């Protein structure tokens, strides 16, 4: 019985040493692919030894492993026969598939070149599916196995503890040429003897008095190396002891258990370092994120912050200006209607805008719910979820640009020295001028942040800027809602004809009819 167990162990060890030997004696199909398309009908097989076979009728060509062996016409007898074969192969696997393909023979109705091609396919299938001997690998290791006579305790130990097999596998890593394997027996290489190749001993003692040209692997045993003993390769010990009494090892001495433990230690150390680095960077970022205004470089930081803020403002003006130019170019009437409404009824527009802002999220959610209750509505809801916020954003932009246009016009009329460049006749100028005007508070705040000790004013200006922006957005958004994005200009409110006249002639008149010297107080601004 112990003999049987040792034989079993020997097989396991041989399998570890020579994986190539235990595979591939049978030509079985491990993977199949049948592909049927408009211009291709193909069969791909993968065999247990890793080889593959592809036979395809593709675009008028008959291909075997990618090489063209003939041609066919779409719908001809050859293609019909091949499709019929693959139709049967679809539902089969493994043995029945192999048998079916091997037994296939060209149908009788084929003739001429079709028959010849079908015959070639048949022969290819038969050859590929027939069991063949494993080819002689030129570099395959030769293994001689020798088993001891003990009671099989080792078998129990090894099979009962997979860790031993793992150790053995590690010990044998890279040992892949000529191997002499001894299980459960002692080995002696006598003085003057030379053992050509590698020596592997499992649960046995080894004494090397002569020479071993390869590596010596000892698992669960001991290695004695007296004077004169010589090992030209490495010595690998797994759960084994070395008694080196003057002998030489020309390769390396490797303790596999220690190696495994070193790998484990390295891994643990690496993980620890990575964690430490992670923590450090977290701490660094959290500390670095704080704004310590009293630091050594705080004045310089203020300059950077101010310049960066100004740049941000300029970029915002440029982007919004481009949006405004787009609106002026493509929807001038809508812009006009919204801007007029915002100008004439700013209070009403602001209230509508505020109410609209509050209702945005409920409308969005309720719309989604209403659409979600039916399967048909679900695809619409999928569009609703992203498009509604986008529409709201577009409305807010249109409104803001409209208010900017009004602001620009006001600035142009104001006669300030720095607003001369705003030409009222050109809406692009008025929009851009208005945007600069609406953001002026932010820009000033950023300019002030360059100068130390103006923190309070900076905060105040930022607050004014935020309030101005909110009011502008609310008025603009409300005007957009009232005019249905500028499509209903009647919501501009009642016309003030006096003002329209004044705007038309660009004249501001203030006439007090009751005043005795009225004519002399009439002022005219050309």
């Amino acid at each position, binding site marked *: 019985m112990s003999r049987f167990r040792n034989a079993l162990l020997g097989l396991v060890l041989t399998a570890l040493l020579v994986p190539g030997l235990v595979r591939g004696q049978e030509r*079985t199909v*491990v*993977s199949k692919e049948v592909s049927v398309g408009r211009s*291709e009908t193909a069969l791909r097989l993968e065999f247990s030894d890793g080889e593959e076979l592809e036979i395809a009728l593709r675009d008028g060509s008959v291909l075997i492993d990618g090489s063209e062996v003939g041609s066919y016409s779409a719908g001809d007898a050859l293609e019909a026969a091949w499709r019929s074969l693959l139709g049967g192969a679809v539902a089969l696997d*493994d043995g029945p598939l192999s048998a079916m393909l091997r037994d296939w023979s060209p149908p009788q109705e084929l003739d001429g070149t079709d028959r010849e091609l079908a015959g070639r396919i048949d022969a290819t299938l038969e050859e590929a599916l027939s069991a063949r001997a494993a080819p002689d690998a030129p570099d395959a290791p030769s293994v001689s196995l020798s088993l001891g006579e003990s009671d099989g305790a080792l078998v129990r130990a090894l099979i009962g503890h997979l860790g031993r097999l793992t150790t053995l596998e590690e010990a044998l890593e890279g040992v892949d040429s000529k191997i002499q394997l001894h299980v459960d027996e002692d080995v002696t290489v006598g003085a003057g003897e030379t053992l050509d190749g590698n020596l592997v001993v499992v649960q046995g003692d080894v004494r090397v008095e002569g020479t071993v040209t390869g590596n010596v692997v000892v698992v669960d045993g001991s290695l004695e190396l007296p004077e004169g003993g010589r090992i030209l390769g490495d010595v690998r010990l797994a759960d084994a002891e070395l008694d080196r009494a003057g002998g030489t090892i020309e390769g390396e001495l490797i303790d596999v258990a220690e190696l495994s433990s070193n790998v484990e230690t390295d891994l643990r150390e690496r993980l620890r370092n990575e964690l430490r680095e992670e923590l450090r960077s977290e701490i660094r970022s959290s500390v670095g994120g704080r704004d310590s205004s009293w630091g050594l470089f705080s004045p310089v930081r203020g300059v950077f912050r101010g310049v960066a803020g100004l740049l941000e403002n300029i970029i915002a003006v440029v982007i919004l200006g481009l949006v405004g130019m787009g609106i002026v170019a493509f929807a001038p009437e809508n812009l006009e209607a919204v801007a007029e409404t915002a100008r004439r009824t700013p209070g009403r527009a602001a209230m509508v805008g505020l109410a609209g802002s509050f209702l945005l999220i409920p409308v969005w959610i309720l719309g*989604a719910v209403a659409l*979600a209750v039916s399967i048909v509505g679900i695809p619409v809801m999928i569009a609703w979820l992203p498009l509604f916020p986008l529409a709201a954003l577009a409305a807010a932009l249109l409104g803001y640009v409209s208010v900017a246009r009004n602001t620009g016009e006001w600035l142009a009329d104001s006669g300030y020295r720095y607003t001369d460049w705003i030409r009222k006749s050109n809406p692009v100028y008025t929009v851009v001028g208005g945007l600069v005007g609406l953001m002026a508070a932010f820009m000033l705040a950023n300019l002030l942040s360059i100068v130390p000790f103006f923190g309070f004013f900076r905060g105040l200006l930022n607050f004014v800027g935020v309030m101005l922006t909110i009011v502008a957005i609310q008025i603009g958004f409300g005007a957009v809602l009232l005019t249905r994005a500028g499509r209903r200009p009647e919501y501009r409110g009642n016309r003030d004809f006096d003002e329209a006249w004044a705007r038309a002639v660009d004249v501001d008149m203030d006439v007090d009819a009751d005043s005795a010297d009225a004519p002399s107080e009439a002022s005219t601004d050309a």
Partner: protein
Amino acid sequence: MRSTPTWALLLCGAVLCAPVALSAQSWRTVTMSRQRSGEQDLRVHVTYGAGRFKVRSVDGGLLYRMQLRYDEDVFEPRVDFEGSSLHLGVENVGKSIRMGKNQGGEMDLVLARDLPMDLDLEFGAVRADVDLGGISMTGLHLKTGASESVVDITEPNSSSMRRASFEVGAADFTARNLGNLNARSVEVNAGVGEIELWFTGSWSQDASVDLTMGLGSLELVFPEGLGVRLTKDSFLTSVDTEGLVKRGDAYYSLDWEDAERKVTIDLNAAFGSVDVRWVR
């Protein structure tokens, strides 16, 4: 003539889309299979975009068999098998854009019975019929998009799993015999749609269930005899707790104390309805 740009846009769109919509789809049918070859366990990842999707288990020495019908101009099958990892599916080859893409496409997948598998199923706009009975699952993650899916575990899972998770997008989703999953924890995260969860099947261990529901209706079906404890955190959601009694913050089935197997459900729902139903 205010609407001229709109018409022009529509016309351009129609002109651009016409050849795409009118071109015929080119269908290809592919059957791929692989034999088992000593696998001890397997991580299986299946991805499928649109069409009909079926999963079953199979006896014998087959590791998997996948039958695909797809538009060869738009998709190509993908099979990656390496050691203990298997990835199956179709992927877009991006040759052209087609309206309705893989409508009419099919994936019929059979997987080996009794081979321990960590199963990851991910599908988009599909009509899915997934029968996981007989598949030995050590883990399950199922993710759907806008689909109509039925997942049934018709036989008890021979392996035990720590967690089964279902991520459901905008979908009609039904899961039956959840007890057969043999999972310690089940997680269902549903976005929008109608969700039906049947806690039938053979419960071999107590389990906790974490349910999160966005919009829509959720129906929980329990077999009589199963101990159920339900806690809920809901917003604008009607919850019908038929057959459950409230004690403290939780709802309990009438035989909670005596039940052989107990399921603890933590429900988090917003905008919709939750109904409880009991079956024999």
